Protein backbone atom coordinates (compact mmCIF):
# COMPACT_ATOMS: atom_id res chain seq x y z
CA UNK A 1 0.00 0.00 0.00
CA UNK A 2 2.78 2.26 1.10
CA UNK A 3 4.53 1.69 -2.22
CA UNK A 4 1.50 2.02 -4.42
CA UNK A 5 0.85 5.36 -2.78
CA UNK A 6 4.45 6.32 -3.47
CA UNK A 7 4.14 5.40 -7.12
CA UNK A 8 0.87 7.32 -7.46
CA UNK A 9 2.47 10.38 -5.86
CA UNK A 10 5.44 9.94 -8.17
CA UNK A 11 3.31 9.78 -11.30
CA UNK A 12 1.51 12.92 -10.23
CA UNK A 13 4.80 14.71 -9.57
CA UNK A 14 6.00 13.42 -12.95
CA UNK A 15 3.11 15.30 -14.54
CA UNK A 16 4.68 18.59 -13.48
CA UNK A 17 8.16 17.52 -14.58
CA UNK A 18 6.73 16.49 -17.94
CA UNK A 19 5.55 20.06 -18.44
CA UNK A 20 9.10 21.27 -17.82
CA UNK A 21 10.63 18.61 -20.01
CA UNK A 22 8.46 18.80 -23.14
CA UNK A 23 9.77 22.14 -24.32
CA UNK A 24 13.34 21.20 -23.60
CA UNK A 25 12.98 17.99 -25.60
CA UNK A 26 11.45 19.93 -28.48
CA UNK A 27 14.22 22.54 -28.53
CA UNK A 28 16.96 19.99 -28.20
CA UNK A 29 15.39 17.81 -30.85
CA UNK A 30 15.31 20.49 -33.51
CA UNK A 31 18.21 22.81 -32.62
CA UNK A 32 20.49 20.56 -30.54
CA UNK A 33 20.71 23.27 -27.92
CA UNK A 34 20.09 23.18 -24.20
CA UNK A 35 18.44 26.38 -23.08
CA UNK A 36 19.90 27.10 -19.64
CA UNK A 37 17.23 29.76 -18.99
CA UNK A 38 14.52 27.08 -19.16
CA UNK A 39 14.03 26.93 -15.37
CA UNK A 40 14.32 30.69 -14.93
CA UNK A 41 11.57 31.16 -17.49
CA UNK A 42 9.28 28.93 -15.39
CA UNK A 43 10.01 31.17 -12.40
CA UNK A 44 9.64 34.38 -14.42
CA UNK A 45 6.26 33.27 -15.72
CA UNK A 46 5.19 32.13 -12.25
CA UNK A 47 6.12 35.50 -10.72
CA UNK A 48 4.34 37.36 -13.52
CA UNK A 49 1.29 35.18 -12.86
CA UNK A 50 1.35 35.78 -9.10
CA UNK A 51 1.65 39.55 -9.55
CA UNK A 52 -1.11 39.47 -12.13
CA UNK A 53 -3.40 37.61 -9.73
CA UNK A 54 -2.50 40.08 -6.95
CA UNK A 55 -3.24 43.17 -9.04
CA UNK A 56 -6.25 42.05 -11.03
CA UNK A 57 -7.75 39.38 -8.83
CA UNK A 58 -8.09 36.88 -11.69
CA UNK A 59 -8.12 33.28 -10.55
CA UNK A 60 -5.65 30.52 -11.41
CA UNK A 61 -7.37 29.68 -14.71
CA UNK A 62 -7.19 33.31 -15.77
CA UNK A 63 -3.49 33.25 -14.88
CA UNK A 64 -2.98 30.10 -16.91
CA UNK A 65 -4.68 31.45 -20.02
CA UNK A 66 -2.56 34.61 -19.76
CA UNK A 67 0.76 32.91 -19.10
CA UNK A 68 0.62 30.54 -22.06
CA UNK A 69 0.53 33.29 -24.73
CA UNK A 70 2.93 35.44 -22.69
CA UNK A 71 5.31 32.47 -22.55
CA UNK A 72 4.96 31.89 -26.28
CA UNK A 73 5.76 35.54 -26.96
CA UNK A 74 8.80 35.43 -24.67
CA UNK A 75 9.98 32.25 -26.39
CA UNK A 76 9.59 33.73 -29.85
CA UNK A 77 11.49 36.84 -28.78
CA UNK A 78 14.23 34.79 -27.09
CA UNK A 79 14.76 32.84 -30.31
CA UNK A 80 14.69 35.85 -32.63
CA UNK A 81 16.85 38.09 -30.44
CA UNK A 82 19.34 35.61 -28.97
CA UNK A 83 19.19 31.96 -29.92
CA UNK A 84 19.01 32.35 -33.72
CA UNK A 85 22.41 34.07 -33.51
CA UNK A 86 24.09 31.28 -31.59
CA UNK A 87 22.43 28.12 -32.93
CA UNK A 88 24.74 25.97 -35.07
CA UNK A 89 26.86 22.87 -35.11
CA UNK A 90 28.89 24.02 -32.12
CA UNK A 91 26.81 23.62 -28.91
CA UNK A 92 29.08 25.92 -26.88
CA UNK A 93 27.88 29.38 -28.06
CA UNK A 94 24.26 28.66 -27.17
CA UNK A 95 25.28 27.25 -23.78
CA UNK A 96 27.33 30.31 -22.97
CA UNK A 97 24.68 32.73 -24.20
CA UNK A 98 21.83 31.11 -22.29
CA UNK A 99 23.98 30.63 -19.19
CA UNK A 100 24.71 34.36 -19.15
CA UNK A 101 21.08 35.16 -19.82
CA UNK A 102 20.03 32.87 -16.96
CA UNK A 103 22.15 34.79 -14.47
CA UNK A 104 20.93 38.14 -15.80
CA UNK A 105 17.32 36.95 -15.60
CA UNK A 106 17.71 35.77 -12.00
CA UNK A 107 19.17 39.11 -10.99
CA UNK A 108 16.49 41.05 -12.80
CA UNK A 109 13.79 39.00 -11.07
CA UNK A 110 15.47 39.62 -7.73
CA UNK A 111 15.29 43.38 -8.36
CA UNK A 112 11.65 43.32 -9.38
CA UNK A 113 10.21 40.73 -6.98
CA UNK A 114 12.87 40.58 -4.15
CA UNK A 115 14.03 37.27 -2.70
CA UNK A 116 10.69 36.57 -0.96
CA UNK A 117 8.96 33.30 -1.71
CA UNK A 118 5.48 33.68 -3.15
CA UNK A 119 2.71 31.45 -4.30
CA UNK A 120 -0.48 31.56 -6.28
CA UNK A 121 -3.77 31.05 -4.50
CA UNK A 122 -5.84 28.31 -6.09
CA UNK A 123 -9.07 29.17 -4.29
CA UNK A 124 -9.09 25.93 -2.28
CA UNK A 125 -8.00 23.77 -5.21
CA UNK A 126 -4.74 22.94 -3.46
CA UNK A 127 -6.53 21.31 -0.53
CA UNK A 128 -9.17 19.43 -2.51
CA UNK A 129 -8.70 15.69 -2.83
CA UNK A 130 -10.57 12.73 -4.16
CA UNK A 131 -10.77 9.20 -2.83
CA UNK A 132 -9.83 6.46 -5.26
CA UNK A 133 -10.28 3.12 -3.53
CA UNK A 134 -8.10 3.23 -0.45
CA UNK A 135 -6.06 6.20 -1.77
CA UNK A 136 -6.55 9.91 -1.35
CA UNK A 137 -5.13 11.92 -4.23
CA UNK A 138 -5.05 15.69 -4.59
CA UNK A 139 -7.26 17.20 -7.27
CA UNK A 140 -4.55 19.64 -8.36
CA UNK A 141 -1.90 16.98 -9.08
CA UNK A 142 -4.47 15.02 -11.07
CA UNK A 143 -5.26 18.12 -13.14
CA UNK A 144 -1.52 18.64 -13.67
CA UNK A 145 -1.10 15.06 -14.85
CA UNK A 146 -4.06 15.32 -17.23
CA UNK A 147 -2.71 18.57 -18.67
CA UNK A 148 0.73 17.00 -19.10
CA UNK A 149 -0.73 14.00 -20.91
CA UNK A 150 -2.86 16.13 -23.20
CA UNK A 151 0.07 18.48 -23.92
CA UNK A 152 2.35 15.56 -24.76
CA UNK A 153 -0.25 13.90 -26.98
CA UNK A 154 -1.06 17.22 -28.62
CA UNK A 155 2.56 18.06 -29.30
CA UNK A 156 3.18 14.58 -30.68
CA UNK A 157 0.19 14.97 -32.99
CA UNK A 158 1.41 18.38 -34.15
CA UNK A 159 4.82 16.89 -34.98
CA UNK A 160 3.33 13.95 -36.85
CA UNK A 161 0.39 15.36 -38.71
CA UNK A 162 0.81 19.07 -39.40
CA UNK A 163 2.73 21.03 -41.98
CA UNK A 164 4.64 22.74 -39.20
CA UNK A 165 5.43 19.41 -37.52
CA UNK A 166 6.82 17.98 -40.75
CA UNK A 167 8.97 21.04 -41.35
CA UNK A 168 10.29 20.77 -37.80
CA UNK A 169 11.12 17.08 -38.19
CA UNK A 170 12.79 17.81 -41.52
CA UNK A 171 14.86 20.56 -39.92
CA UNK A 172 15.83 18.21 -37.06
CA UNK A 173 16.99 15.57 -39.54
CA UNK A 174 19.02 17.91 -41.77
CA UNK A 175 18.53 21.62 -41.43
CA UNK A 176 20.41 22.53 -44.61
CA UNK A 177 18.41 20.03 -46.66
CA UNK A 178 15.21 21.43 -45.14
CA UNK A 179 16.22 24.91 -46.28
CA UNK A 180 16.91 23.45 -49.74
CA UNK A 181 13.25 22.42 -50.04
CA UNK A 182 11.97 25.81 -48.96
CA UNK A 183 11.74 25.54 -45.16
CA UNK A 184 12.85 28.68 -43.33
CA UNK A 185 14.87 27.25 -40.42
CA UNK A 186 14.80 30.42 -38.34
CA UNK A 187 11.01 30.55 -38.48
CA UNK A 188 10.79 26.87 -37.52
CA UNK A 189 13.15 27.50 -34.60
CA UNK A 190 11.25 30.57 -33.41
CA UNK A 191 7.97 28.65 -33.40
CA UNK A 192 9.61 25.72 -31.56
CA UNK A 193 10.87 27.98 -28.79
CA UNK A 194 7.53 29.76 -28.64
CA UNK A 195 5.79 26.40 -28.14
CA UNK A 196 8.41 25.31 -25.59
CA UNK A 197 8.08 28.43 -23.45
CA UNK A 198 4.31 28.56 -23.99
CA UNK A 199 4.08 25.11 -22.37
CA UNK A 200 6.09 26.53 -19.47
CA UNK A 201 3.07 28.78 -18.88
CA UNK A 202 1.26 25.63 -17.68
CA UNK A 203 4.25 24.53 -15.60
CA UNK A 204 4.58 27.99 -14.04
CA UNK A 205 0.93 28.22 -13.03
CA UNK A 206 0.90 24.78 -11.44
CA UNK A 207 4.29 25.20 -9.79
CA UNK A 208 3.16 28.49 -8.21
CA UNK A 209 -0.03 26.82 -6.96
CA UNK A 210 1.42 23.64 -5.50
CA UNK A 211 4.40 25.23 -3.76
CA UNK A 212 6.25 28.53 -3.54
CA UNK A 213 8.54 30.25 -6.01
CA UNK A 214 11.45 32.67 -5.57
CA UNK A 215 13.76 34.27 -8.17
CA UNK A 216 16.66 31.88 -7.51
CA UNK A 217 14.62 28.65 -7.93
CA UNK A 218 15.11 28.32 -11.68
CA UNK A 219 18.19 26.07 -11.70
CA UNK A 220 16.29 23.32 -9.82
CA UNK A 221 13.54 23.27 -12.40
CA UNK A 222 16.19 23.24 -15.12
CA UNK A 223 17.83 20.17 -13.59
CA UNK A 224 14.54 18.26 -13.36
CA UNK A 225 13.69 19.07 -16.96
CA UNK A 226 17.16 18.10 -18.08
CA UNK A 227 17.12 14.81 -16.15
CA UNK A 228 13.70 13.87 -17.48
CA UNK A 229 14.80 14.56 -21.05
CA UNK A 230 18.03 12.58 -20.67
CA UNK A 231 16.30 9.62 -19.03
CA UNK A 232 13.67 9.48 -21.77
CA UNK A 233 16.06 10.00 -24.66
CA UNK A 234 16.90 13.36 -26.18
CA UNK A 235 14.46 14.79 -28.60
CA UNK A 236 11.49 12.46 -28.22
CA UNK A 237 8.25 13.88 -26.85
CA UNK A 238 6.84 10.73 -25.26
CA UNK A 239 10.37 9.89 -24.15
CA UNK A 240 10.47 13.15 -22.20
CA UNK A 241 7.07 12.33 -20.69
CA UNK A 242 8.23 8.88 -19.62
CA UNK A 243 11.50 10.28 -18.31
CA UNK A 244 9.52 12.75 -16.22
CA UNK A 245 7.42 9.90 -14.81
CA UNK A 246 10.50 7.86 -13.94
CA UNK A 247 12.06 10.88 -12.28
CA UNK A 248 8.86 11.65 -10.34
CA UNK A 249 8.44 8.05 -9.17
CA UNK A 250 12.12 7.79 -8.17
CA UNK A 251 11.83 10.94 -6.09
CA UNK A 252 8.55 9.89 -4.47
CA UNK A 253 9.82 6.43 -3.59
CA UNK A 254 13.11 7.85 -2.36
CA UNK A 255 11.13 10.22 -0.20
CA UNK A 256 9.23 7.27 1.33
CA UNK A 257 12.50 5.56 2.18
CA UNK A 258 13.82 8.69 3.84
CA UNK A 259 12.50 12.24 3.42
CA UNK A 260 16.03 13.52 2.87
CA UNK A 261 16.66 10.96 0.15
CA UNK A 262 13.89 11.91 -2.31
CA UNK A 263 15.66 14.40 -4.59
CA UNK A 264 18.87 12.41 -4.40
CA UNK A 265 17.07 9.23 -5.49
CA UNK A 266 16.02 11.07 -8.65
CA UNK A 267 19.60 12.11 -9.35
CA UNK A 268 20.83 8.55 -8.77
CA UNK A 269 18.35 7.10 -11.24
CA UNK A 270 19.37 9.80 -13.74
CA UNK A 271 23.05 8.91 -13.33
CA UNK A 272 22.27 5.19 -13.58
CA UNK A 273 20.44 5.73 -16.89
CA UNK A 274 23.30 7.88 -18.12
CA UNK A 275 25.77 5.10 -17.28
CA UNK A 276 23.75 2.14 -18.59
CA UNK A 277 21.82 3.65 -21.51
CA UNK A 278 23.32 7.04 -22.36
CA UNK A 279 21.09 7.45 -25.42
CA UNK A 280 18.05 7.36 -23.07
CA UNK A 281 15.33 4.78 -22.73
CA UNK A 282 13.36 5.66 -25.84
CA UNK A 283 16.15 6.55 -28.24
CA UNK A 284 17.46 3.94 -30.59
CA UNK A 285 21.22 3.93 -31.04
CA UNK A 286 22.10 5.88 -34.16
Amino acid sequence: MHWIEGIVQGVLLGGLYAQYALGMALMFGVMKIVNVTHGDLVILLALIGISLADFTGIGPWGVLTTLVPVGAAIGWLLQRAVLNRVVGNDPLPSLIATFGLSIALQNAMLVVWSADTRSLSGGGLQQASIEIGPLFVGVLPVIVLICATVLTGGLDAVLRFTRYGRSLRAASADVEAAAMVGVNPKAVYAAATAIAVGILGFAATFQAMRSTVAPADGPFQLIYAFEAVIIGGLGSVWGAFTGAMILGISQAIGFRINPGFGILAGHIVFLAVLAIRPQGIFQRKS
Partner: protein
Amino acid sequence: MTTLLSTHGLQAEYGDMRALHGIDFAVEPGETVALIGANGAGKSTLLSAIMGLLPVAVEMVKLDGKPVGGSLPHRMVQSGVAIVPEGRRLFAGMTVEENLQVASEHAAAPRGTAWTKERVYDLFPILREKARTPVENLSGGQQQMVSIGRGLLAQPRVLLCDEISLGLAPRVVREIYDVLPQVTAQGTALVLVEQDVGLAQRASQRLYCLLEGRVTLEGKSSDISRDDISAAYFGASHALD
Protein backbone atom coordinates in the same frame (compact mmCIF):
# COMPACT_ATOMS: atom_id res chain seq x y z
CA MET B 1 14.15 34.96 -74.43
CA THR B 2 15.61 36.22 -71.14
CA THR B 3 18.18 34.05 -69.49
CA LEU B 4 16.60 32.16 -66.62
CA LEU B 5 19.56 31.76 -64.32
CA SER B 6 23.07 33.11 -64.69
CA THR B 7 26.23 33.73 -62.72
CA HIS B 8 28.61 36.62 -63.37
CA GLY B 9 32.22 36.38 -62.25
CA LEU B 10 30.97 34.22 -59.40
CA GLN B 11 33.47 33.78 -56.61
CA ALA B 12 32.96 31.63 -53.52
CA GLU B 13 35.14 30.74 -50.59
CA TYR B 14 35.33 28.19 -47.80
CA GLY B 15 36.97 30.23 -45.08
CA ASP B 16 40.22 31.49 -46.56
CA MET B 17 40.19 29.10 -49.47
CA ARG B 18 38.68 30.38 -52.68
CA ALA B 19 36.92 27.54 -54.47
CA LEU B 20 35.41 29.43 -57.42
CA HIS B 21 37.41 32.02 -59.37
CA GLY B 22 34.93 33.98 -61.43
CA ILE B 23 32.40 31.64 -63.02
CA ASP B 24 30.19 32.83 -65.87
CA PHE B 25 27.39 30.38 -66.32
CA ALA B 26 23.89 30.57 -67.81
CA VAL B 27 20.79 28.42 -68.27
CA GLU B 28 17.84 29.19 -70.55
CA PRO B 29 14.28 28.07 -69.81
CA GLY B 30 13.72 24.40 -70.65
CA GLU B 31 17.38 23.81 -71.39
CA THR B 32 19.49 20.96 -70.04
CA VAL B 33 23.02 22.00 -69.19
CA ALA B 34 25.66 19.56 -68.02
CA LEU B 35 28.41 20.49 -65.62
CA ILE B 36 31.41 18.22 -65.64
CA GLY B 37 34.82 18.32 -64.04
CA ALA B 38 37.19 16.25 -61.91
CA ASN B 39 36.75 15.70 -58.18
CA GLY B 40 37.18 18.99 -56.35
CA ALA B 41 36.73 21.09 -59.50
CA GLY B 42 34.01 23.13 -57.81
CA LYS B 43 30.80 21.74 -59.33
CA SER B 44 28.98 21.27 -56.05
CA THR B 45 30.31 24.58 -54.81
CA LEU B 46 28.83 26.32 -57.85
CA LEU B 47 25.41 24.81 -57.13
CA SER B 48 25.68 25.69 -53.43
CA ALA B 49 26.63 29.26 -54.24
CA ILE B 50 23.68 29.62 -56.62
CA MET B 51 21.36 28.10 -54.03
CA GLY B 52 22.44 30.57 -51.35
CA LEU B 53 24.18 27.97 -49.22
CA LEU B 54 27.43 29.93 -49.43
CA PRO B 55 27.78 33.69 -49.06
CA VAL B 56 28.20 35.39 -52.45
CA ALA B 57 27.84 38.97 -53.66
CA VAL B 58 24.36 39.92 -54.78
CA GLU B 59 25.31 40.82 -58.40
CA MET B 60 27.04 37.50 -58.98
CA VAL B 61 23.83 35.45 -59.39
CA LYS B 62 20.87 36.56 -61.47
CA LEU B 63 17.44 35.04 -61.85
CA ASP B 64 15.34 36.45 -64.71
CA GLY B 65 18.07 39.08 -64.97
CA LYS B 66 17.50 40.26 -61.39
CA PRO B 67 20.36 40.07 -58.88
CA VAL B 68 19.66 37.41 -56.22
CA GLY B 69 23.16 36.36 -55.10
CA GLY B 70 23.36 35.44 -51.42
CA SER B 71 19.58 35.08 -50.97
CA LEU B 72 18.75 32.48 -48.34
CA PRO B 73 18.09 28.96 -49.73
CA HIS B 74 14.38 28.96 -48.87
CA ARG B 75 14.01 32.25 -50.76
CA MET B 76 15.72 30.73 -53.79
CA VAL B 77 13.24 27.85 -53.66
CA GLN B 78 10.36 30.28 -53.56
CA SER B 79 11.79 32.08 -56.59
CA GLY B 80 11.88 28.82 -58.54
CA VAL B 81 15.34 27.30 -58.03
CA ALA B 82 15.53 23.83 -56.49
CA ILE B 83 18.36 21.40 -55.89
CA VAL B 84 18.81 17.64 -55.74
CA PRO B 85 21.82 17.78 -53.46
CA GLU B 86 24.94 15.66 -53.53
CA GLY B 87 24.42 12.66 -51.25
CA ARG B 88 20.60 12.93 -51.49
CA ARG B 89 20.18 14.45 -48.02
CA LEU B 90 16.77 12.91 -47.32
CA PHE B 91 14.98 13.51 -44.02
CA ALA B 92 15.78 10.41 -42.00
CA GLY B 93 13.03 9.16 -39.73
CA MET B 94 10.37 10.36 -42.15
CA THR B 95 8.56 8.31 -44.77
CA VAL B 96 8.85 8.71 -48.54
CA GLU B 97 5.50 10.46 -48.57
CA GLU B 98 6.47 12.84 -45.77
CA ASN B 99 9.74 13.72 -47.47
CA LEU B 100 7.82 14.63 -50.60
CA GLN B 101 5.16 16.46 -48.63
CA VAL B 102 7.62 18.78 -46.88
CA ALA B 103 8.78 19.91 -50.31
CA SER B 104 5.31 20.42 -51.73
CA GLU B 105 4.24 22.34 -48.62
CA HIS B 106 7.04 24.89 -49.09
CA ALA B 107 7.10 25.03 -52.86
CA ALA B 108 7.28 27.96 -55.23
CA ALA B 109 4.06 28.99 -56.93
CA PRO B 110 3.82 26.58 -59.87
CA ARG B 111 3.96 27.94 -63.43
CA GLY B 112 2.20 25.63 -65.84
CA THR B 113 1.25 22.13 -64.76
CA ALA B 114 2.13 21.70 -61.11
CA TRP B 115 4.13 18.71 -59.95
CA THR B 116 2.07 16.58 -57.59
CA LYS B 117 2.92 13.56 -55.49
CA GLU B 118 0.89 11.48 -57.97
CA ARG B 119 2.94 12.73 -60.91
CA VAL B 120 6.14 11.90 -59.06
CA TYR B 121 4.78 8.41 -58.35
CA ASP B 122 3.97 8.09 -62.06
CA LEU B 123 7.58 8.94 -62.89
CA PHE B 124 8.92 6.49 -60.31
CA PRO B 125 6.19 3.86 -59.65
CA ILE B 126 8.27 2.09 -57.01
CA LEU B 127 7.88 5.13 -54.77
CA ARG B 128 4.12 4.65 -54.70
CA GLU B 129 4.66 1.19 -53.24
CA LYS B 130 7.15 2.54 -50.73
CA ALA B 131 5.16 5.65 -49.78
CA ARG B 132 4.88 4.63 -46.12
CA THR B 133 8.44 3.36 -45.80
CA PRO B 134 10.99 5.39 -43.82
CA VAL B 135 13.52 6.68 -46.33
CA GLU B 136 16.47 5.11 -44.55
CA ASN B 137 15.08 1.68 -45.50
CA LEU B 138 15.18 2.38 -49.26
CA SER B 139 17.87 1.32 -51.72
CA GLY B 140 20.24 3.99 -53.00
CA GLY B 141 18.38 4.28 -56.30
CA GLN B 142 15.03 4.65 -54.58
CA GLN B 143 16.48 7.29 -52.28
CA GLN B 144 17.74 9.18 -55.31
CA MET B 145 14.25 9.03 -56.79
CA VAL B 146 12.80 10.53 -53.60
CA SER B 147 15.41 13.27 -53.72
CA ILE B 148 14.53 14.08 -57.33
CA GLY B 149 10.82 13.94 -56.48
CA ARG B 150 11.41 16.34 -53.64
CA GLY B 151 13.20 18.68 -56.01
CA LEU B 152 10.35 18.54 -58.52
CA LEU B 153 7.70 19.16 -55.87
CA ALA B 154 9.40 22.46 -55.09
CA GLN B 155 7.88 23.43 -58.50
CA PRO B 156 11.20 24.71 -59.83
CA ARG B 157 11.83 26.57 -63.04
CA VAL B 158 15.38 25.31 -62.82
CA LEU B 159 16.42 22.12 -61.04
CA LEU B 160 20.05 21.71 -60.04
CA CYS B 161 20.99 18.00 -59.90
CA ASP B 162 24.24 17.07 -58.20
CA GLU B 163 25.55 13.66 -59.31
CA ILE B 164 22.23 11.87 -59.38
CA SER B 165 23.86 8.77 -60.91
CA LEU B 166 26.54 8.38 -58.26
CA GLY B 167 26.77 4.91 -56.78
CA LEU B 168 23.75 3.55 -58.67
CA ALA B 169 23.49 0.46 -60.84
CA PRO B 170 23.52 1.23 -64.61
CA ARG B 171 19.91 0.05 -64.94
CA VAL B 172 18.78 2.51 -62.24
CA VAL B 173 20.81 5.32 -63.78
CA ARG B 174 19.04 4.69 -67.08
CA GLU B 175 15.69 4.61 -65.32
CA ILE B 176 16.37 8.00 -63.75
CA TYR B 177 17.81 9.64 -66.86
CA ASP B 178 14.89 8.35 -68.93
CA VAL B 179 12.45 10.50 -66.98
CA LEU B 180 14.41 13.74 -67.34
CA PRO B 181 12.89 14.64 -70.75
CA GLN B 182 9.48 14.61 -69.04
CA VAL B 183 10.81 17.24 -66.66
CA THR B 184 12.18 19.56 -69.32
CA ALA B 185 9.12 19.01 -71.53
CA GLN B 186 7.18 21.44 -69.37
CA GLY B 187 9.81 24.14 -69.50
CA THR B 188 11.80 23.29 -66.40
CA ALA B 189 15.51 23.81 -66.98
CA LEU B 190 18.00 21.22 -65.70
CA VAL B 191 21.56 21.60 -64.57
CA LEU B 192 23.18 18.19 -64.39
CA VAL B 193 26.41 17.72 -62.50
CA GLU B 194 27.68 14.41 -63.79
CA GLN B 195 30.82 12.28 -63.39
CA ASP B 196 30.00 10.18 -66.44
CA VAL B 197 31.08 12.48 -69.26
CA GLY B 198 29.43 10.45 -72.01
CA LEU B 199 26.13 10.44 -70.17
CA ALA B 200 26.42 14.18 -69.50
CA GLN B 201 27.06 14.86 -73.18
CA ARG B 202 24.13 12.74 -74.36
CA ALA B 203 21.64 14.13 -71.83
CA SER B 204 22.39 17.83 -72.34
CA GLN B 205 22.21 20.52 -75.00
CA ARG B 206 25.10 22.53 -73.61
CA LEU B 207 28.00 21.63 -71.42
CA TYR B 208 30.41 23.39 -69.10
CA CYS B 209 33.63 21.90 -67.85
CA LEU B 210 35.16 23.17 -64.61
CA LEU B 211 38.74 22.83 -63.52
CA GLU B 212 40.03 24.15 -60.20
CA GLY B 213 37.20 26.64 -59.84
CA ARG B 214 37.33 28.00 -63.42
CA VAL B 215 35.34 27.27 -66.55
CA THR B 216 37.74 25.60 -69.00
CA LEU B 217 35.23 24.66 -71.68
CA GLU B 218 31.77 25.69 -72.72
CA GLY B 219 29.75 24.79 -75.78
CA LYS B 220 27.08 22.75 -77.51
CA SER B 221 27.26 19.21 -76.18
CA SER B 222 26.95 17.66 -79.64
CA ASP B 223 29.81 19.78 -81.06
CA ILE B 224 32.39 19.12 -78.39
CA SER B 225 34.99 16.48 -79.13
CA ARG B 226 36.44 13.97 -76.69
CA ASP B 227 39.85 15.64 -76.99
CA ASP B 228 38.44 19.07 -76.13
CA ILE B 229 36.83 17.55 -73.08
CA SER B 230 39.90 15.74 -71.84
CA ALA B 231 42.01 18.88 -72.30
CA ALA B 232 39.47 20.92 -70.34
CA TYR B 233 38.91 18.20 -67.77
CA PHE B 234 42.51 17.51 -66.82
CA GLY B 235 44.15 20.81 -67.86
CA ALA B 236 46.17 21.56 -70.98
CA SER B 237 49.37 19.90 -69.75
CA HIS B 238 47.71 16.49 -69.61
CA ALA B 239 46.20 16.85 -73.05
CA LEU B 240 49.68 17.01 -74.56
CA ASP B 241 50.64 13.48 -73.47
